[in-house]
């Protein structure tokens, strides 16, 4: 049974990890997030595979984020091989990514995080105590899945998105259906914002570390990283700037930026940095405890953006297009996309037969490990004297503010 103590597992997050409290006598003096998820070694699995197989395999890194992994991998491959995609393909891919954003945020807000605020164990108790709120969340979540299924062919691991285009372009009727559903969902989303903003606080105000986001704002795409310390890093230099290294206590690599500063990525970072400035005033506390509010605001941004994208697509007129041709087989390329939890980078190198020789994937939860460590230290400092169980509960709630996705982080 020795290893089963690892069942002291962080719950209501994707993947396997734990928050370990370090004690000096009775006092809790430090806390650490251990990501002991089994590594699947994706960056090694991808080596030796042909370029058109990369996105199909890479999206299996994570289910909640499978659409955004697929799209980031597609764009990384296309960058490497000089493949340019049509406007229609770009719009449809973005629509699928917005669908993923909606699904992931709704899942986190209404199934994974809300129990913390209401002092219950999970969705079963939510169904008993706030059934209409859970239903509302599930309706929004379902819409995110419908978008991913119509564009990607399936809610998880979308197969319809290919290098250079789509296997089958959705028809106008399907997009009109989504548009109607999105319009209907705006009432639920507005009600969600009102509800989430009025929940009682469960954590103290803890300062944020500097933040980092992909440049494109509501589109979730972009060609550089922007930071709250004023730097701007083009996609090609992102991997070096993120500077991942291996540390003993976690199976996920840890980003080191300029050697010392941890950065935060995710909804709060985006709202402070790259999203329309009209929402910044809602986050003047500049504290990680507001991450849930940031997610629900982003839900609204994603719903609106998805409606906009459908409008562009329908106005342009949907048409079947052949897949774009491969420019050259050999090359290197990278792509940045905002995943629900923050900056995602996929970067690949191919040889003269189009076979992958190197893959590098940097995920938001891996990046956030540094920020989580800082937050945990700050929390422990504010809770000096509190008992083990109380600190443990707060520490887990704090980690959940980052909505960690541990399969992504370790991959």
């Amino acid at each position, binding site marked *: 049974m020795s*290893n*089963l103590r*690892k*069942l*002291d*597992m962080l*719950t*209501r*997050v*994707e*993947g*396997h990890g734990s928050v370990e409290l370090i004690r000096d006598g009775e006092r809790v003096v430090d806390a650490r997030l251990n990501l*002991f998820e*089994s*590594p*699947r*070694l994706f*960056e*090694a*699995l991808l*080596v*030796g*595979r*042909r370029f058109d*197989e990369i996105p*199909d*395999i890479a999206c*299996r890194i*994570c*289910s*909640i984020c*499978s659409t955004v992994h697929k799209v980031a991998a597609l764009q990384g491959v296309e960058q490497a091989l000089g493949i340019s995609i049509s406007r229609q393909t770009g719009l449809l891919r973005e629509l699928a990514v917005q669908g993923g954003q909606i699904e992931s945020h709704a*899942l986190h807000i209404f*199934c*994974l995080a809300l129990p913390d605020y209401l002092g219950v*164990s*999970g*969705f*079963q108790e939510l*169904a008993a105590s706030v*059934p209409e709120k859970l*239903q509302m969340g*599930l309706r929004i*979540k*379902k819409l995110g*899945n419908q978008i991913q299924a119509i564009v990607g*062919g*399936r*809610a*998880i*691991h979308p*197969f*319809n998105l*290919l290098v250079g285009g789509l*296997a*089958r372009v959705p028809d106008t009727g399907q997009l009109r259906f989504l548009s109607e559903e999105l319009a209907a969902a705006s009432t639920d989303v507005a009600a969600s914002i009102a509800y989430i903003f009025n929940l009682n606080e469960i954590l103290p105000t803890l300062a944020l570390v500097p933040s980092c986001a992909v440049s494109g704002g509501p589109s979730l795409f972009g060609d550089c990283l922007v930071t709250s310390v004023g730097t701007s890093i083009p996609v090609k230099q992102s991997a070096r700037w993120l500077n991942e290294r*291996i540390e*003993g206590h976690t*199976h996920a690599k840890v980003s080191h930026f300029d050697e010392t500063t941890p950065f935060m990525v995710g909804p709060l970072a985006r709202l402070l940095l790259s999203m329309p400035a009209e929402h910044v005033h809602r986050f003047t506390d500049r504290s990680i405890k507001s991450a849930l509010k940031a997610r629900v605001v982003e839900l609204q941004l994603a719903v609106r953006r998805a409606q906009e994208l459908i409008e562009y697509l329908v106005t342009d007129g949907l048409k079947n297009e052949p897949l774009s041709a491969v420019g050259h087989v050999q090359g290197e390329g990278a792509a940045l996309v905002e995943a629900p939890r923050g900056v995602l980078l996929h970067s690949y190198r191919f040889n003269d037969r189009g076979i992958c020789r190197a893959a590098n994937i940097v995920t938001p939860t891996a990046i956030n490990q540094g920020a989580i460590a800082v937050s945990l230290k700050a929390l422990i400092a504010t809770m000096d004297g509190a008992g083990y169980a109380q600190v443990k509960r707060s520490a887990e709630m704090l980690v959940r503010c980052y909505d960690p996705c541990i*399969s992504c982080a370790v991959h």
Partner: protein
Amino acid sequence: MRKLRLAIAGLTACSGCQLSLLNCEDELPALMAQFEFHFFPLACSPAVLEGEYDAAIVEGCLSMPHEKELLHELRKRSRYLIALGTCAAWGGVTALRNGEDRELMRQQVYGQSPVAVETFDPLPLGSLVLVDAAVTGCPPEKEELLKLLAGLTQGALPVENDYPVCTECRMRENLCLLTERDMLCLGPLTLGGCHARCPTLSASCEGCRGPVPEANVKEYLALCAKTGRDEEAVLGRLHRFWPGWVL
């Protein structure tokens, strides 16, 4: 009526099979009336195994020692143990380089640092414990997952399919991607049950549901050779979800 007690666990995987359950947004209320999701760390706190379970539904393959212990523990406590998804049933995408030097692969990712040195070639659940039933797919079809749960309420396990993706593809009157469009479609070798989801959108079957019983690999490879397909590419595709093909 007593609610059935479930343990839902993930091993080495992407959580997609468990998410497929949470993606049953319309059916969740009815499911909650029939089942107690007692151990379900992805969605419920705390993660504590306690007492016995009517069924353990397990996603993912085995690739670390602590997962073997967890699986034994789940098996011991459960009347039925169900492998959910292709990783649990066959090894899945994580196993695609099984048989190669795993330590070398580990070093490709972690260098000389001793992180996760305990990792081993991914194995399906059946290599360690008795598996009562499997629902395959990457991800599994929601419909099959719901059928499994509905069956459990009657004390029954799902009837396993024995036909390939092609059977359902023909029934949907799709153009044959393999013979009529010259695409590398794995439909003839892959277990059906997905209503030919991918070929129906003109995307090749990538074999995500694992092998169909009595798959005629030899004939498939001969057909590919006849149409001048690169054998390396065919084999690579074949091994994406299961490294165990006997050629």
